[in-house]
């Protein structure tokens, strides 16, 4: 047995696992409060990588800046999407037809202009818009038994198509390289294998962020509000908590997590418009396996499946692209609600 290769595949598995965990965590947080499966999650991950690339190319802001700025910027776009589109899922009126069209056209215009060499101060426009939207907010989340969540899936799928198409239109399908930050170049010799510094950093940082999110939701007062609003939004609203704002910020947070994963991925993979779509389908399978009931469940399932995928790549490489789907089928037969699902 070639231990060097085995550990190499395990490492790749752990890296993939970090992405699965970060993305399925964001999906679970969003689903908890909005009852929407965010199909645009992969596109927002892709956006994260692209924004990091632009910060470096246009404005010379390096990787460390990107780590801070990208989740905030892409999170803002998530807030706008939530206020403009997702919050309108329930109201259906005559005027909305015109409104929806204008809205979609405007969003496309923003995306198109955003990366076409505009001065940086234009970024103030979406930020101001966002602040206005968060302040003027009067909505409660849908009740879990309402059938609207399927429309949420369709809506975010459309959004994913728009985003992917827009980036494809602007940059083509060839990948753009993103150079590794200087401080994280080089390799550590662990005795049994060589660990590239950057890969070690990604695993460590993702794990830290996952655990911090878990702590935030399960152990702080803010998280307690969030969990209470998931259970009974009307009651929490009656206690004086601004639930609509919480929903919007939750969506923004989930999108920010996806964008952060995109920044982590940028130096490892090429930055390309289609980098998100194949990943998100695997993450959906991960979510089905884990069930969306628990935060820790999402983290464990994500990392665990990454490791299993890495091991498969070593022992039986032909099955490595399908092993997660096979596990999903087995879990559905034995425990349909998912490993950590409640119902």
């Amino acid at each position: 047995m070639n231990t060097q290769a085995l550990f190499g595949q395990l490492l790749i598995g752990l890296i993939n696992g970090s992405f699965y965990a970060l993305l399925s965590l964001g999906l679970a947080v969003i689903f908890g409060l909005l009852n929407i499966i965010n199909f645009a999650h992969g596109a927002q991950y892709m956006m994260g990588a692209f924004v990091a690339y632009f910060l470096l190319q246009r404005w010379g802001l390096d990787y460390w800046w990107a780590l801070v700025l990208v989740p905030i910027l892409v999170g803002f776009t998530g807030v706008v999407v939530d206020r403009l589109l997702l919050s309108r899922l329930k109201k259906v009126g005559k005027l909305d037809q015109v409104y929806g069209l204008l809205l979609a056209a405007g969003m496309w215009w923003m995306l198109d202009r955003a990366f076409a060499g505009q001065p940086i101060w234009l970024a103030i426009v979406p930020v101001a818009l966002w602040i206005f939207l968060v302040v003027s907010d009067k909505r409660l989340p849908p009740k879990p038994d309402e059938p609207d969540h399927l429309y949420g899936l369709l809506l975010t799928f459309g959004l994913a198509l728009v985003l992917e198409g827009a980036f494809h239109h602007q940059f083509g399908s060839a990948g753009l390289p993103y150079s590794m930050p200087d401080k994280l170049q080089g390799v550590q010799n662990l005795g049994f294998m060589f660990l590239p510094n950057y890969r070690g950093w990604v695993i460590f940082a993702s794990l830290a962020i996952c655990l911090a999110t878990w702590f935030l939701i399960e152990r702080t007062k803010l998280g307690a509000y969030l969990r209470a609003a998931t259970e009974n939004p009307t009651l929490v609203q009656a206690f004086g908590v601004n639930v609509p704002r919480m929903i919007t910020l939750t969506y923004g947070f989930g999108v920010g997590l996806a964008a952060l994963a995109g920044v982590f991925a940028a130096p490892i993979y090429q930055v390309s418009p289609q980098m998100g779509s194949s990943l998100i389908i695997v993450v959906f399978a991960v979510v089905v396996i884990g069930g969306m009931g628990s935060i820790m469940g999402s983290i464990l399932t994500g990392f665990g499946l990454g490791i299993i995928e890495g091991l498969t790549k070593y022992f039986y490489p032909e099955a490595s692209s399908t092993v997660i789907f096979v596990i999903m089928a087995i879990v559905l037969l034995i425990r349909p609600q998912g490993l950590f699902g409640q119902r």
Partner: protein
Amino acid sequence: MATTTAATPGSIGEARYERNAFIVMLVAMLAMPFVIYPNFAMQLLCFALFACAFNLLIGFGGLLSFGHAMFFGMGSYLSAHAATAWGLPIEVAILVGMATSVVLGAVAGLLAIRRQGIYFAMITLALAQMVYFFCLRAPFTGGENGIQSVPRGKLLGVLDLNQPLPMYYFVLAIFLAAFLLIHRIIHSPFGQVLKAIRENEPRAVSLGYRTERYKLAAFVLSAGLAGLAGATKAIVVGNASLTDVYWAMSGEVVLMTLLGGMGTVFGPVVGAFVIISMQFYLAELGSWVIIAQGIIFVVCVLSFRRGVVGEIEAWLRARRKG
């Protein structure tokens, strides 16, 4: 999806509407190859059939499958393979493709109906991606190249299908047979139970229906008809490729049905015609087509949930009452 308009033939007026609309559609389809390029018209019919099959599941069973490309694609691959490598006659090749999709539909359906709603959509999507990877690797599919130059041959050994018109009317016959079958299914007692499950599954269970059997049967029927559409498409276009099993194809059929009107009999046909024409005539615009499709998705969901045909039917209904 309780908000979709149900196409229940409640009154004589509705039955008359359905008959008249069917006659209009039939005349238009009979005349179509003389107006537009016949090969394109055949493709329109194949995708219309695909959308109708999908609509059977979402519109009448309330199940949103996001992986219907696996049935369409496997039907396409198997019929192309049967016609090319095994040299089977075209009608048998199409049946082989359809049978493959029925079997695949039974397996996928058994897994997917164990969860509902959002999870159902995610599971079907994941299973379809697995089929995609299978098709990418399997030796008979030709990987990235697909199966090229599928022969059309002769129907029942007599009618030469290399001529555009005989081929068109052969495809039209397949489409009409499937369309009438779907119409029959919807209006049968089985279809009524399906609608009951869509509206309120716990109540259907309490009335003594084994709802999972009905859902599985609807899933297999829908898969088989989607496979028929794919198998026919492979013969029409003369190839089967990875595009047919890719997730984007699953999304497209959802869009066609949503745009035309979920739960209406004619909606998917209209939706498929619009979307495929858009792709065909705007092909040089490249990624703009995808962007436009995404925008149509967003607009439909936000403000146009009944779709084109759904809106027309609602208008007719309001006029009849008023």
